[in-house]
């Protein structure tokens, strides 16, 4: 397992390291920067939703808190950007800890509603706390990042920074997932009551993983703030929470790699559609993007409830199994030996649920 991960990770490192040399245009690189930022959000939500089974419809709030904390500290109070990023992460983690306690008393649909409410509250605060956040007119003057005189002013430099952090989060997450904590989280996902019966402090683990995912989102937000250098509330609204959810679902709820895949697929698709749809249908615009996303989400949920990545894997596995089964039954029929053998063994449903 560990060995496998190492190979995959080094493959990822190579692919990501080489990508900017394949796509040299600043546009392509900035698309990949946004993929990286989205990937951090998706990895965090994947831990929370895919592993611990706790739905969140307010993930954009953590992203916004991180972005605004960084933005306000650097633009209004001239704090060092790196220190500000750290403070933003601590602040967001603290918020997650405080809201986690009451929030996780809720389960299922109620939890979804609670997180939705949290997202809306944060959004309204960003809009209404005009003195602090600049309100709807936005916050200007967020500086670019630099370290020891090295400024991340070019897109390509920022690309490596974002992806270095994204991969760091990926490794951290893999470690969490493959540890005692990860097993505890999965047990919560399976059955909270059973997990508690076995002595897992479910509330503690749920809050811990919420904090982890909030910190990821906060750092992603800080990176967004220093990249765009202007903040206003709309990008941190409900729409983003849903987009991150789509990324995680498309990528596969139970795979942190899938989260990166989901972030990339969603961002690329949205960029491609914006360019191509108006060419195919004159007069049409971005609204078709929502239609396409809706269709993809429906298809994925119906046919691959475990996500595109693991869904495809399951399909391949099932196809192999069926092939093997067909061979078996043919042999059986040829020999006229056994009657009453079920064509579809019960094991198949078990595989699907996997």
């Amino acid at each position, binding site marked *: *397992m560990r060995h*496998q*991960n190492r190979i*995959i990770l080094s*493959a*990822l490192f190579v*692919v990501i390291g080489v*990508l900017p040399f*394949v*796509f040299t*245009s*600043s*546009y*392509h690189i*900035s*698309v990949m920067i*946004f993929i990286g930022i989205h990937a951090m959000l998706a990895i965090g939500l994947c831990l929370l939703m895919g592993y611990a089974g706790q739905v969140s419809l307010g993930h954009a709030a953590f992203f916004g808190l991180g972005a605004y904390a960084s933005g306000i500290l650097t633009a209004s109070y001239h704090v060092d950007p790196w220190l500000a990023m750290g403070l933003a992460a601590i602040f967001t983690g603290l918020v997650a800890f405080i809201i986690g306690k009451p929030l996780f008393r809720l389960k299922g649909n109620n939890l979804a509603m609670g997180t939705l409410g949290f997202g809306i509250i944060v959004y309204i605060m960003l*809009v*209404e706390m*005009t003195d602090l956040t600049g*309100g*709807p*007119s*936005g916050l*200007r003057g967020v500086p670019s990042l630099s370290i020891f005189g090295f400024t991340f*002013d070019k897109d390509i430099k920022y690309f490596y920074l974002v992806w270095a952090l994204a991969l760091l989060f990926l490794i951290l997450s893999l470690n969490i997932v493959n540890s005692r904590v990860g097993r505890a989280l999965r047990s919560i996902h399976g059955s909270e009551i059973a997990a508690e019966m076995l002595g897992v402090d479910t509330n503690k683990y749920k809050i811990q993983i919420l904090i982890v995912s909030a910190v990821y989102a906060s750092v992603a937000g800080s990176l*967004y703030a220093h990249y*765009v*250098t*202007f903040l*206003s509330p*709309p*990008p941190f609204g409900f729409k983003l929470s849903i987009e991150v959810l789509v990324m995680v679902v498309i990528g596969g709820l139970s*795979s942190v*790699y*899938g989260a*990166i*895949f989901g972030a*990339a*697929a969603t961002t*690329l698709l*949205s*960029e*491609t559609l*914006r*360019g*191509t749809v*108006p060419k195919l249908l004159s007069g049409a*615009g*971005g*609204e078709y*993007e929502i239609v396409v996303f809706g269709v993809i989400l429906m298809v994925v949920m119906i046919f691959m409830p475990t996500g*595109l*990545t*693991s869904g*495809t*894997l399951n399909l*391949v*596995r099932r196809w192999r199994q069926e092939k093997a089964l067909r061979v078996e039954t043919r042999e059986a029929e040829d020999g006229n030996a056994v009657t009453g053998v079920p064509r579809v063994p019960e094991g198949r449903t078990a595989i699907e649920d996997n």
Partner: protein
Amino acid sequence: MKQPKWLMVSLLLVLALAALAVGACTATPTPTPTTAPKPPAPAAATPAKPAATAPAATTPAKSAATPAASKPAASKEPYKIGGLFAITGPASSLGIPERNTVQLLEEQINQQGGINGTPVKMVIADTESDETKAVLAAKKLIDEDKVLAIVGPSQSGESLAIADTIEKAEIPLVSAAASIKIVDPVKKWIFKTPQSDSLIVQALVDYLKAKGYTKIGWLSVSNAFGDSGKVEFEKAAPGAGLTTVAKESFGANDTDVTAQLTRVKAANPDAIVVWAIPPAAAIVSKNVAQLGIKQPVFQSHGIGNKQFIDLAGTAANGVRFPVGKLLVADSLSGSDAQKKVLQEYAKGYTAKFDANTLSTFGGHAWDGFWIVAKALEKSGPDRAKLRDAIESNTKEFVGITGVFSFSPTEHNGLDKRAVTMVEIKDGKWVNAE
């Protein structure tokens, strides 16, 4: 678990391939311009201007002879201008007329032989009213489509979000968004055409003062538009001896504002000022009628399109607001420098598009397009020279929004002439007395 991980890696690789495909997709339009002189050529070949056909028609031959894009051939390629508008999403009522307008102008300018014989090509991009997407779309216009200048984006937030990208890429931008923050402090590469809120608010404040309304009840929508209106009003009101007796806000998606209006009514103002765009702006006017509030209602330039009248119905009657002159072009005096330009734009636009979408927003794009086109005539296809030409060449330029004069310290360049007071009477716009 062994295979799955490997398959995941291959999926990631597939994704990289998909990214390649995207690259290919975006790359394909790039060669198109090389063959693009052909489509403009028939357009230019209208019987009225046969001379224009000659330079355009020679282009394919030349570029065929020297495929290595030697300098003379490159200069005959169409001038590409980016149009970055919120064509979809909440701000589409701004972006659609803007897109329509630049497409109309592209057609018109090419029929007249283009700029110095070079056709113009508008590359339109949709921001989906989203700031993050506006940044990506701007980068795409700059790096992939290699446009010479960008007209747009529609919204202030989008314009401020791409400001950094624009300054770093060193490409002229003529924004179609209102916020003063876009050009204050002046940024080297960024201009804007709509009136700043301070100009609009000043016109309204002067009017209120002249009419003797001193106690004002204020309502504004809680977004960048309403926020900016409120700030400017607070700045301008004391100078004119106006006092704000009530101050309320509402959401852009609110469907009822009676609670806020009741509080405003209780403060007994002389007049009510509402700063919002439809549909919320129309809801306020409807609620005013429902509550039987007798005080005169003033709104902002945000209601300067047919949508407000459609939504508010009879409640729209009697509403007065400060706005650009386009809405009342026909009733302007003949001596007004803008009258002819305004009437021609309105005629050209309504002949091709839905007359209901004719609005001052399209006018902002009209101004942006012509400011860039006029400067291109002087500068040729070079971003830096074009920027200098926009700054130095735009003097007393008569546009739809007003009369522009840019300078190194002034990148909006409008004066009082750009605003007039309009009243809605029987569902029609007339000059307010």
